[in-house]
């Protein structure tokens, strides 16, 4: 059971990392508009940078 001395701090470190990642995601605005990505596919103007990148490399 002495393995707990290793496992408990390890799990706390994991939680810390998850919490830090969550905070980063929230404060960088990733949850500001949850519908944006779902609506984007319904829009017609897909000639932006993302649209041309999705076409893949052009063949000569």
């Amino acid at each position: 059971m002495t393995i707990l001395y290793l496992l408990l701090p390890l799990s706390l470190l994991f939680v810390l990392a998850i919490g830090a990642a969550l905070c980063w995601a929230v404060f960088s605005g990733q949850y500001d508009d949850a519908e944006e990505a779902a609506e984007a596919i319904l829009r017609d103007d897909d000639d932006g940078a993302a649209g041309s990148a999705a076409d893949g490399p052009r063949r000569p």
Partner: protein
Amino acid sequence: MLRTMAAFSIFATARALQPGERRQRRHALARLAIAWLAMMQVMMLAWPGYLRHDGMPADALATLDWAIVLMNWASLALTAPVVAYSAWPIWRGAWRSLRAGRAGMDVPVALGIAAAFLPSVHATWTQRGHVYFDSVTMFVAFLLTARYLELCARQCAGEGGRHALLERQRAALGAAADRVASRFVPAQAGLALIAAAAWALVEPALALPVMVASLVMSCPCAMSMAVPAAMAGAHAALAREPGMDAARFDALVADARRRAGRNLYGSLAWHLLMAPLAAAGWVQPWLAALTMLGSSLAVAWYSWGLARPGRPRGTAGPAHAAP
């Protein structure tokens, strides 16, 4: 088309938010996320404490007690940020209303958190007694969930175009809600202390959980949600049909008013029903927090029914649903 669709979800972010409102919403979400994250971990760490009973073999008991001490320290490490950061709006609100000399709804909540957290820290330090870290984190997480819903409803309502007559209804109903809460909270807090004192004489081990559960029950978060959520629903319905005629508009306002009133008194009745159960020691603190979340969700769902497309106006919806 897309804009009108978005207006019907309570979680739809109002696009015209001021930078301050946006920051407030991000902070609220971060506090909520940390509380939920810590809650799940602490619940797991609390599990060995629930397994322990005196009928176990002595060597197993010794090992378990050693493990529980470690788990308690880990729980403390996880609960401290929840109490310090996630619950910060509660401390601030309680301090503000105490300084203003009235018992706002944050006061019993803050009392409940402190009453569960401080003895738990003491028990962890002395390695004796029961800890309530799981109750503290669950309570904070559920309460913040209800408040986040309220914030979303409020921000949606703020975006949906101001209308003078709606606004007036809202002011009148808000005043009624404040009046109910200002009588209700001190009475309930007093009741919690009396119940705890009575239990301390009969069964001291139960006094603390009973007091925490009763204080949690006295949090009128569902009541505080009742009016804004209603009004947000009416705003959304109005935004969907800007050109509705006067008769239908009157029907909508009457419906919104009826729903807000029903929400308010429904949640009050629910509180009164649960309070004796909490005082009798049948409701664990985390269960009390869960019922608070449930009643808040019921209020939000019922109010949002007003704005659901395809629903005939002016008919009574389902009664206030108990979770």
